[in-house]
């Protein structure tokens, strides 16, 4: 046989002799791909989003049925598949249902790791199964695919660990001399192996080298990146995982994989681009900037007097305002304070105070993080205002309640050219009549920079865990009301 066998080889069905089966399976894949496209399309509107899930599920069911029709699957194979699927589902269901909303970023990073693991393993199996009879182009694609799978696997695990704030993983970026050189050397090693294999696919030893190089590179890639940049990195890894799936599609001659991979790839790329833009940073800077590594320098610089308030005072101030804007941040997620926040808002509204929420595009640790949490607490989404909408309104606001947010309200982003967050668009809370900041200490946020807002004379600090503080304020406000009513 020549180098270019008919399509059927990858697909495991010979279209010339088993035409009907070939057509049926292809149609299943085609409709499955259409399901995926519709799924994303419907996801672009809150009203149709749930229909989108349904379309995606249908797509998956069709893809699986189509695949199970492939004649290559043996009878015992079906049993193995059933067992593996059951195990996977047994793990997937609790992971889907039990993980709290606040742990969503880690959860998503973790599942990138699973996805990349699967893609990588399939690539490896394909290699061992078919070597040395592999054309150079396919071999190169396969090599790249395996590298991507390996690096996304460890990279995602590292990202999940940093987000979960696992003890033995440094949150801060770790930088050391020659770091970039080392990283490129490891990646270069993988690249050389891919070339060697493309030239001579029988060099079996090169595969483990690729795998190890990929795994190591995934770790090295994440080490110099601070926790605050993890969401961007996760979206990037998502994009890579999509590309890996698409490459696998070329190897397996499966258009469905190509479509799904391309969709996921562009999704990840767009989301990471959106995040970068919202932080006014470049991809390069996110990946190699070691953002937040230089905290020490920043931690000391500013000093000044702060004013702090008791719950009693804070409650009074809130109760006596007309318009309060709540600015939630990562601290609300950590404290799981979203339900209490809504309660506070309800309590205030009963006192005749108007309450709005201001959502910064990168508040929290992933795009839309605050939206999901507040949605969980039944805050209607019309009440959440985007940065562009609320910023012009701040001068009319009586009190801004900054709740575990820090970097997204740091005025240094507007004027301090030396600050690492300089140029990031922020919520202009300092334009309001007064600001109340709820956090546990004076520690900086994830960018690791001091926040001059806290030293502003308009600002009142209320120290404590976000959830506890909310509870206290609710008691203060509704308690006061009772005593008046009596």
């Amino acid at each position, binding site marked *: 046989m020549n180098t270019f066998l*008919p399509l059927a080889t990858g697909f495991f069905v010979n279209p010339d002799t088993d035409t009907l089966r070939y057509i049926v399976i292809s149609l299943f894949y085609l409709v499955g791909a259409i399901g995926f496209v519709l799924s994303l399309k419907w996801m672009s509107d809150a009203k149709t989003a749930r229909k989108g899930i349904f379309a995606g599920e249908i797509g998956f069911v069709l893809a699986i049925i189509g695949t199970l029709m492939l004649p290559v699957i043996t009878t015992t194979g079906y049993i*193995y598949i059933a067992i593996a*699927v059951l195990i996977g589902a047994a793990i997937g269901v609790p992971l889907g249902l039990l993980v709290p*909303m606040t742990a969503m970023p880690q959860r998503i990073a973790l599942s990138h790791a699973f996805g990349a693991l*699967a893609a990588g*393993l399939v690539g490896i199996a394909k290699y061992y199964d078919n070597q040395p009879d592999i054309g150079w182009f396919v071999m190169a694609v396969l090599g790249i695919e395996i590298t991507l799978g390996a690096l996304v696997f460890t990279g995602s695990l590292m990202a999940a660990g940093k987000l979960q704030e696992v003890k033995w993983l440094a949150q801060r970026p770790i930088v050391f001399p020659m770091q970039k050189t080392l990283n490129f050397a490891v990646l270069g090693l993988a690249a050389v192996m891919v070339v060697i294999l493309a030239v001579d696919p029988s060099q079996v030893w090169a595969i483990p080298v690729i795998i190890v190089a990929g795994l190591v590179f995934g770790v090295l890639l994440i080490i110099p990146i601070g926790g605050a940049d993890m969401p961007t990195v996760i979206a990037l890894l998502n994009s890579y995982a999509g590309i890996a*799936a698409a490459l696998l599609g070329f190897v397996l001659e499966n258009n469905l994989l190509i479509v799904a991979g391309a969709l996921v790839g562009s999704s990840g790329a767009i989301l990471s681009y959106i995040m970068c833009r919202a932080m006014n940073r470049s991809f390069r800077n996110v990946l190699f900037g070691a953002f937040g590594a230089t905290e020490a320098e920043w931690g000391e610089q500013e000093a000044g007097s702060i004013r702090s308030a008791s719950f009693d005072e804070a409650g009074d101030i809130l109760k006596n305002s007309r318009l309060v804007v709540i600015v939630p941040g990562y601290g609300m997620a950590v404290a799981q304070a979203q339900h209490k926040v809504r309660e506070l808002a309800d309590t205030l509204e009963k006192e005749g105070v108007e309450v709005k929420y201001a959502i910064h595009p990168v508040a929290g640790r992933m795009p839309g993080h605050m939206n999901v949490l507040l949605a969980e607490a039944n805050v209607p989404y019309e009440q959440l205002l985007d940065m562009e909408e609320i910023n012009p309104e701040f001068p009319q606001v009586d009190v801004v309640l900054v709740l575990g947010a820090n970097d997204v309200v740091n005025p240094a982003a507007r004027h301090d050219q030396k600050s690492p967050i300089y140029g990031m668009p922020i919520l202009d809370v300092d334009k309001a009549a007064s600001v109340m900041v709820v956090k546990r200490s004076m520690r900086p946020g994830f960018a690791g920079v001091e926040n001059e807002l806290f030293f502003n004379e308009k600002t009142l600090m209320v120290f404590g865990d976000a959830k506890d503080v909310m509870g206290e304020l609710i008691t203060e406000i509704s308690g006061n009301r009772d005593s008046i009513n009596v």
Partner: protein
Amino acid sequence: MNVSVEFIMTGLFVFALAGFLGFETIRRVPRLLHTPLMALTNALSAISLVGSIVVLGGQFTAYTTILGFVAVIASTINVVGGFLITDKMLKMFKPREKPKPPEAAEAEAGS
């Protein structure tokens, strides 16, 4: 295993078109839905389940069968978990409710 040039060239068409389509659709997803979107694409990227099933079910060698077994488990976790999570999140998104009678609201606030 050799893929025909024809497949690669048509595959590139499919890739380019799907990429554009993804770009056009996803850039219109509002910020509100970015987290559910990430969860959904998580589920979708587990499409390598298709490849995993073949590797496991084909039982080519004991070695590849083991790899396939792990791969099927890993991608099933993603598919099942991904869709469940997306669904759970979206269920939370509600448009503004009709104002409740004051007692009900009070009872809830106290809970």
